[in-house]
């Protein structure tokens, strides 16, 4: 019995060892699915330079995948592999630090995101690439400014966007309403809709970040562009009366007046879009990234219009405008030249149509909207951005430090939930900004 057992153990060890050796041998000789070599029959294989790209567009993004295919076809010396990452904020820092990160990454441009990577020396400066490819002539200055830290440029910002009010034109027509010119007009529109049992504005803040855009709209319109820039840069206190009012109006007064759906903190961003799509709500205060959704007949058949949130007490409005994210190159990129070539291709004449027509995203380049087959709403957005670039305000959360953002997101939920007052939230925002100044994570955007 024991002899048999001993043999079994030996056999097991022999078998395990043999199996491991076999696996190793097979692994060594079996080619990968995609070696990235140009293996044209009859010609020697050319080793391509590999470029790994991480972005946040989703694995099935047809538009971005199309751009990658086009690049690989047009550049036989390089091979781009694209990987969609859903948790980039969690893994990117560690991956880059370990030398296992991507060559090119599509990441948030703020000081708490790309700024942290840049200051840690994990990104390649792109100032020379801007010269080499003459990007300054093609790419809008804001795309460079937002991706620059401490005087050095590290990326190209992308996805130009604005935040404003989308409205259901059918409901407005039926109720005899028009896009309002002033804040008081806006409140009157809300009252009229409410009287007809229509939710004036759909708002879901369970995800926390939508409140940041609402605050961007009101602080731009009440405090003004320059003061907002000063506050973002840590030069003006966030508990100044204008900012307190920018919290009080949308998060307290309009909530109490019943101008939104109920349970704002329990409704997700997507669900609030459903309220708008279904016609239960007449307006949505959100960004131009929703243009694609609001012009898709599968979502909503009613025509959708757009207006910037109107002037409050006759002040000049500064609607939020900014960039979604930006492309950056990792310090340890296998092929920096290939990475620069890919960035160049991303915003070339060959791909502008992919961004606009395929994804309804506005790339950061000078373009003529009439040259492309796009919806009227997207065309309107492009023209607005181009014509009013100088007077546009800011999307606060892409410019402010991360600890400020968490205070902003948590705090606004608390203000909506009556756990905190507008003044308390403004004080907390200022405290968070002071902490960020101490940590050196504040971005100076003053002229």
């Amino acid at each position: 019995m024991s002899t048999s057992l001993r043999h079994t153990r030996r056999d097991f060890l022999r078998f395990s060892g043999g199996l491991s050796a076999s696996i190793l041998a097979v692994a060594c000789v079996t080619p990968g699915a995609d070696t990235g070599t140009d293996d044209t029959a009859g010609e020697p294989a050319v080793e391509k330079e590999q470029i790994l790209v991480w972005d946040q567009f989703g694995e099935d993004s047809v538009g971005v995948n199309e751009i990658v295919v086009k690049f690989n076809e047009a550049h036989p010396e390089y091979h781009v592999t694209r990987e969609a990452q859903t948790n980039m904020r969690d893994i990117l820092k560690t991956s880059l630090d370990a030398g296992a990160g991507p060559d090119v990454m599509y990441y948030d441009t703020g000081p708490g995101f790309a700024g942290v990577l840049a200051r840690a020396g994990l990104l390649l400066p792109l100032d020379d690439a801007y010269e080499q490819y003459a990007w300054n002539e093609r790419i809008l200055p804001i795309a460079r400014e937002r991706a620059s830290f401490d005087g050095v440029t590290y990326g190209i910002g992308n996805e130009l966007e604005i935040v404003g009010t989308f409205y259901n034109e059918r409901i407005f027509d039926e109720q005899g309403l028009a896009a309002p010119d002033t804040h008081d007009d806006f409140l009157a529109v809300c009252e009229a809709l409410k009287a007809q049992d229509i939710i004036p504005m759909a708002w879901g803040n369970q995800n926390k970040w939508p409140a940041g855009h609402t605050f961007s709209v009101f602080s731009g319109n009440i405090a003004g562009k320059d003061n907002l820039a000063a506050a973002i840069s840590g030069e003006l206190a966030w508990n100044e009366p204008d900012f307190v009012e920018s919290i009080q109006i949308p998060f307290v007064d309009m909530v109490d007046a019943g101008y939104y759906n109920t349970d704002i903190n329990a409704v997700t961003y997507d669900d609030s879009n459903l309220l708008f799509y279904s016609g239960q709500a007449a307006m949505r205060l959100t960004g131009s990234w929703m243009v694609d959704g609001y012009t898709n007949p599968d979502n909503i058949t009613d025509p959708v219009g757009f207006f910037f949130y109107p002037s409050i007490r006759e002040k000049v409005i500064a609607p939020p405008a900014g960039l979604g994210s930006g492309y950056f190159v990792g310090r340890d990129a296998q092929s920096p030249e290939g990475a620069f070539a890919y960035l160049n291709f991303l915003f070339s004449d060959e791909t502008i149509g992919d961004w606009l027509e395929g994804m309804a995203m506005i790339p950061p380049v000078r373009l003529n909207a009439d040259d492309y087959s796009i919806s009227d709403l997207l065309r309107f957005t492009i023209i607005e951005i181009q014509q009013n670039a100088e007077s546009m305000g800011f999307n606060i959360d892409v410019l402010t430090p991360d600890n400020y953002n968490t205070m902003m997101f948590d705090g606004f939920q608390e203000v909506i939930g009556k756990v905190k007052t507008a003044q308390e939230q403004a004080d907390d925002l200022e405290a968070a900004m002071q902490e960020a100044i101490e940590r050196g994570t504040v971005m100076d955007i003053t002229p």
Partner: protein
Amino acid sequence: MTAAAPVRRGQLSPRAKRKALAGWAFVVPALLIYAFFFVQPFFYSIYYSLTDWNGADPVKQFVGLGNYIKLAGDSLLWQALGHNLIWVIIGTVSPIAIGLLLGVLIWTGALGRVLFRTIYFLPVVLSEVVIAIIWNWIYHPLFGAVNQILRGIGLDHLARGWLGDPQTALLALLMTAIWSYYGFCFVIIMAGLQNVDISLVEAATIDGANGWQRFIHVIVPQLSHVLTMITAFTLIGGFNVFGIVFVMTQGGPGTATQVIATYTYRKAFQESQVGYGAALSMVMTLLSLATSYIFIRLRERQEQ
């Protein structure tokens, strides 16, 4: 034929040595994996907790106990800790009580034992994320089952955004956690009940003990080892809870459901304060260890 060499006391025979070596051969790989994936990161975490590091900078500034001193004055930590304590108490007592009750009911001879066991155990096989998504739908303010039922029976005034209301969010999460865990308690208790000495139960019945007395004084004491194990697991789980909270509320509304694990994640990953996050994780580890140790020691002393 030669006599076998005498083996001195304390010395292993060649055969025993071979067996010991074979034993080590099987244990060492697992030990190495454990050391690499658990022990090493644990000591790294201790080191990080003594630094001011953003997770990316090549320089980790040593701050000694600075992070731990800062923890003492961090009101959000205390709030999160309070939520963990609520979670530990309600989230430990409830699933065990439900599991025990159901286990004893079925053990006493209910029909369809296998069917009930399968039904009760079903939530345990689901991942935390799936459970969180299911319950997000159940609590949905616009078309969730809870509000629909309340409206259906004329209790409209009770319908609300359960996860968006600071008054109800934590309890709503706890309900989800209890639902996901009581099946595990039930199955373990059912296994424990197989070892209960029936003759003692019968003797107690003859002595005139009623059902409740038999349950408390005869059955529960015989389940003490099983209950100790489940309670220790649940206590540790109560301090480490993350998935359900993160998926369902992200600690919100505001910080109404923030627990230490989600707060640690927020500091380390969302605010790039990895050093401070590591200090928070050390607090979490110490709490889990200390609570479990004290509980098990108390149980052992009680048994002695």
